[in-house]
């Protein structure tokens, strides 16, 4: 049983969002980088739980990024996982990134590929589906529960206004969200062990990016809150009806 967990480096949730170079680059000044929370809390932890239940399983982490992504992948290794692979390139194009991971997935012959449901920077929810297509595997997105019985997975996924349960034979690609597992904090033993776990750097496959970021924009600043007195609720209703046209 081989599991591949995709890990992405993202700005911390509370990071100030600003841009430089004429709004073409994310301003990294003072930004703290974290493992994308969906990758860390749900897909990685669920993979670790599967290995705890089946110690013969191996977990590989993969990230597509430059050398500055290594602290993040070491942090992920501190939680668990046997080794990590860094594809030495960077891109904002989902297809380019997915194609790199698909290459790693093909060569490693994994039974399971886990991603987070999205990254908190690009919010695309695209990588998992693309990997699945490129390696010709079924794909379950937005999983809230994942169980394995032999080589058959039972997955609960979010649908509009509810959820559904599906059974799928491995190999399989799954995007994970809240419910799949509970967040863990790395312990000292894990942090020490992570220092010596193998971190393999591979060069990217020749793939053409299909999109490029032309520029960024910040939303117009809110005009500021209009406060209504608590004894004048009818005024709020009037504003919502006549001014905001929201009711």
């Amino acid at each position, binding site marked *: 049983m081989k599991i591949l967990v995709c890990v992405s480096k993202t700005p911390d949730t509370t990071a100030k969002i600003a841009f430089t170079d004429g709004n073409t680059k994310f301003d990294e000044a003072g930004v703290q980088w974290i493992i994308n929370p969906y990758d860390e809390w749900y897909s990685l932890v669920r993979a670790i739980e599967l290995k705890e239940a089946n110690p013969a399983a191996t977990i590989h982490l993969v990230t597509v990024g430059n050398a500055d992504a290594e602290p993040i992948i070491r942090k992920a290794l501190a939680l668990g996982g046997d080794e990590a692979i860094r594809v030495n390139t960077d891109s904002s194009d989902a297809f380019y990134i*997915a194609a790199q991971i698909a290459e790693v997935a093909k060569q490693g012959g994994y039974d399971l590929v886990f991603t987070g449901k999205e990254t908190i920077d690009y919010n695309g929810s695209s990588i998992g589906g693309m990997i699945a297509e490129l390696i010709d595997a079924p794909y379950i997105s937005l999983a809230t529960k994942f169980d394995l019985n032999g080589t058959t997975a039972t997955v609960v996924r979010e649908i509009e206004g509810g959820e559904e349960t599906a*059974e799928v034979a491995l190999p399989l690609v799954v995007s994970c969200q809240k419910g799949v597992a509970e967040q863990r904090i790395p312990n000292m033993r894990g942090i020490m062990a992570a220092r010596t776990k193998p971190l393999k750097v591979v060069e990217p496959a020749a793939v053409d990016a299909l999109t490029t970021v032309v520029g960024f924009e910040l939303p117009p600043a809110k005009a500021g809150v209009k406060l209504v007195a*608590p004894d004048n609720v009818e005024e*709020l*209703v009037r504003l919502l*009806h006549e001014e905001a046209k929201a009711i």
Partner: protein
Amino acid sequence: MSVLIFIDQTEGHVKKSSLEAITYGADLAKQLGTTAEGIVLGTVTEDLSALGKYGVTKIHHVANETLNHLDAQLYASVISEAAAASGANVIVFSHNQTGKAVAARVAAKLKAGLVAGACALPDTSNGFVVKKTVFSGKAFANISIQSSVKVISLNPNSYKTVATEGTASVADFAATVGQPRVKVTAVNKITGEVPLTEADIVVSGGRGLKGPENWGILLDLAKELGAATACSRPVGDAHWRPHHEHVGQTGVQVAPNLYIAIGISGAIQHLAGVNRSKVIVVINKDPEAPFFKAADYGIVGDAFEVVPQLTAAIQKLKAGA
């Protein structure tokens, strides 16, 4: 050349988010000087020709029961076949649960550049540049697609549905439908409630309501507004409300026309789930609550007094209208 719109349905009915995608796709087709066509998978109970009023002229229907449940691989294969048959150079999805599973697969299959989570029509004056939300609604990115075939998935509640006159021609599309590898064994829908991600209005409660037994005032307000109900993370974690109502960075991200937050302080992780709401109303007794900075309207006051009055005032407005 055409714009192909994936029209998502559930239990035979076309989803609201798909009507938005149709309007968007039809407007885009007009901009490109071409026609808008749609594809519907699975058996439906609705009259599909009526979707013509949203601007789609032709609908390809694959009325195969196998497609009543989502298997992203099968869906992507059938949609790609339809895209080839209709000579589509742009394929439009809603960025809803189904779109998130399928659009990326179609894009990878066709080697087509994807913009997932678009919020406006492309700028085609110089290339093909699509605006999308990034950083959980805190910013926008303009993304240029270079490939000849392009895939766009549209954020729900970000493009206004416009219904006019018109009927679409509906034709069965003979696609190759393979064996599904995903077997759906149970569907568990919350009935009688507005789905949170599709709702126009969301009423959300936080720790300020003090306990699950106090949710009645919020439910009354939601009922009066025809709104979906939501909650903050601490409320979900404490099991005061079901987990699926948790709105925020790690929960559900919503983008309704109106978001009413009651007794929620507005931590940055919560705001990440509601940033894309058009109008935000905050009711909180703490004037320093950070949520007021992100709000359009606010009342500093006790929710237990304000909310029932608000419900009554809305009732009165409706009675007068």
